[in-house]
């Protein structure tokens, strides 16, 4: 009975649902994150193809730019944990498909693979040891992003193979690789910057509210 209770508490803690207050923030992160994801993911930001990697028969564009949807997933996962990261990726992508393309690819498995990224990034509690003000935490977040990105790619490829009958190498080479450079920049350059800036804004907001409420 005690073991069962410990497991339950650990699970709730892992999912950032341990207390009513924490659950409230996690739920807010999921709702707001999903809404923001849905509306920013189709936004085309300026992108520029710096050069193309010539593979003889086709070209892989190396493109500078920002894919805001991925940044939102990382941001929510970093602050509100794995459940929030998972659901923002899944609900956000699914919502975006339904709203803007009226077509759910591979029965929502693409969204689930995006959710996998958020789930992995959200595993550590980065708030300990000065939060993201400590470069080690930012580095840890990037390391988990790398792991999440790998698993996301695998899940994405497998799900498209199994559910949508796509070929593994065709999907990897001609669907995913062209997408690679812009996601790498978004995940490993822009996402950490956004996370740190968000962290500073949260800290400043807390200071402000503390000062205002005289605590």
């Amino acid at each position, binding site marked *: 009975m005690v073991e069962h209770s410990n497991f339950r508490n650990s699970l709730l803690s892992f999912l950032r649902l341990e207390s009513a207050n924490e659950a409230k923030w996690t739920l807010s992160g999921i709702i707001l994150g999903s809404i923001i994801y849905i509306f920013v993911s189709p936004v085309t930001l300026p992108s520029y193809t710096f050069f193309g990697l010539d593979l003889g028969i086709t070209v892989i*564009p190396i493109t500078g730019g920002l894919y805001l949807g991925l940044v939102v997933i990382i941001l929510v996962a970093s602050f509100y944990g794995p459940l929030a990261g998972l659901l923002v990726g899944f609900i956000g992508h699914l919502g975006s498909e339904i709203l803007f393309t009226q077509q759910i690819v591979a029965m929502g498995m693409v969204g689930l693979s995006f959710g996998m990224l958020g789930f992995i990034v959200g595993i550590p509690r980065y708030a300990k040891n000065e939060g993201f003000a400590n470069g080690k935490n930012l580095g840890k977040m990037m390391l988990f992003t790398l792991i999440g990105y790998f698993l996301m790619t695998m899940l994405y490829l497998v799900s498209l193979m199994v559910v949508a009958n796509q070929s593994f190498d065709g999907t990897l080479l001609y669907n995913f690789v062209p997408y690679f450079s812009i996601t790498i920049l978004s995940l490993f350059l822009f996402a950490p910057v956004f996370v740190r800036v968000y962290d500073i804004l949260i800290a400043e907001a807390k200071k402000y509210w503390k000062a205002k409420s005289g605590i």
Partner: protein
Amino acid sequence: MSASIRNFFVRSKLFTSLLILGIIISGLTIVLNPTNPSTPNFGIIIVPDEGTFDLSEYPYLDRRVIGLWNSLRELYSVDDFSNNSINDLSILPDVLTQYFIAFTTYGMAQIVDSTPNYRTDYYKNLFQKLILMMNSSAMEEFEWILPGFADERYESLGNDFRGPTNIMWTGHYTLMELLYYNVFRESTYNDEIKWFIDDWNNSLTATTTWDNKSSIDNQGRPLGLWRTGLIPCEPYIVFVQCNSIPFYAITLYDKLHNSNYAQSIEPGIDWWQEYMTDDNGIQIDGYYISEPYTALHQFEVLGEIPGPALEPVLASEGVPGVANYGSSWAIAFYQGFGKTDIAETYYRNWKTNFIHYSPNDQAYAPHSYHNPSSFTEMDLIGNLFSYLGAREMGDSNLFRKLENWFYGPYPGEWDGYRYRFDTSALGEIGPFMDPILQFAWAWGHADSTLSDLMDVKSDSFYTSFPYISAESTTEGLFIYQAYYDETKEAFILSVEVNEQTAITFDQFPDVQGVYLKSGVYEDWAQNGGQMILTLSPGTYSFVIL
């Protein structure tokens, strides 16, 4: 910089490094992206006593489409009709050359149809040049003699470049000529068109085959000289996609001339659905009616003849071949000539079996779903036709995804008044891909479709209504809208000129006034049945009554 901020950045080394790198890449992205001139907003013009004209409701051309047309005019040297020039195919890839010329023309017809009351040599010359190149000695040598189709072993089938077993050339050539007639209503090529239509009709309505066998289907309808209701490409094989071209042409011819040739195509359409569709509901890529002898087939594993061409990687298992390019090409043209039920069924199957989705807003399709790992020129050609097929089917989501994938590596750029996609990132494949990329985007963004072209205009549209018949210069001239609204008896014109330009309208007597958003435009003159509009550099939207 205050000490605390400096300390913050010094202490946050990882963040600061990422921030600086992010700013550099963002800055480069913004700086390197050129600010391009764009298509204007056409807006609303209010004409006193005549009402309100919302110009956005009329067909228009994107500025980039006109820029691509200007690039094509330059590529094909449209003012040079010399023998040397029309026989110079070196400007095009040395494979599938005839298809580049033909499909460029089909895209052009849709562009012209987007501004139907603009009919000058600016448009016509490019059609005429391509038609001449298609019928040149160089093309005959390339397309028929070099591959060995003139071989005497094909004599009983027919080994003549201009028919009856060369639908891959005769179909395209005739449709190019017929579309010229359709959009300009000039009878320059009508005798030739009629000759080919009759030749196809003879082939399709025969009840005895080339080798003297009975050729009727189970409804008693003729299945033609090749007992398939189709006409061969190369003398020994029939393709659904190649036959979609003459079928489109025959249907269009009937509409233009009130004739009844189209009944000859029905048995073939039923036949291929029964005998040339695989287990996935996809048309198979070729059906041999006789044995091939040319070097093209020396390594090919053949199945039973007559019978389907086999998938190269699964030939030993007797699996019929499929080809994305052929499927999507046929779907587009079947939709175009009104066989929408067939087009929709095969489109649904094609989408399920071919399309590969990307995690972002992109999609691509392999040449064959039996061998999706391979990637050759045929995969690129397949994606071109997928792109055009999705557009013809009105599937704007897939069209956008395919465009994002297909055009992703090639930024579009302006060179003066010419627009083109920069293919410099490509290596050996560059000369092959370049002409495809240039014409396909223009086709994809014209304000007309193959189906729209089938909705033929009345003769009086061409003989009675006002149209632009001449311009003092085409340099820097962008005619975005040229449309005569028959109901309101008003000419809608949106135009950008970059130097002083006079535009001449024919069949436009008794013009009452030229109206802009800001009021009345005065710089025009009536000259009998002609009206001449003089414009200084600028962008204008007019309603002319």
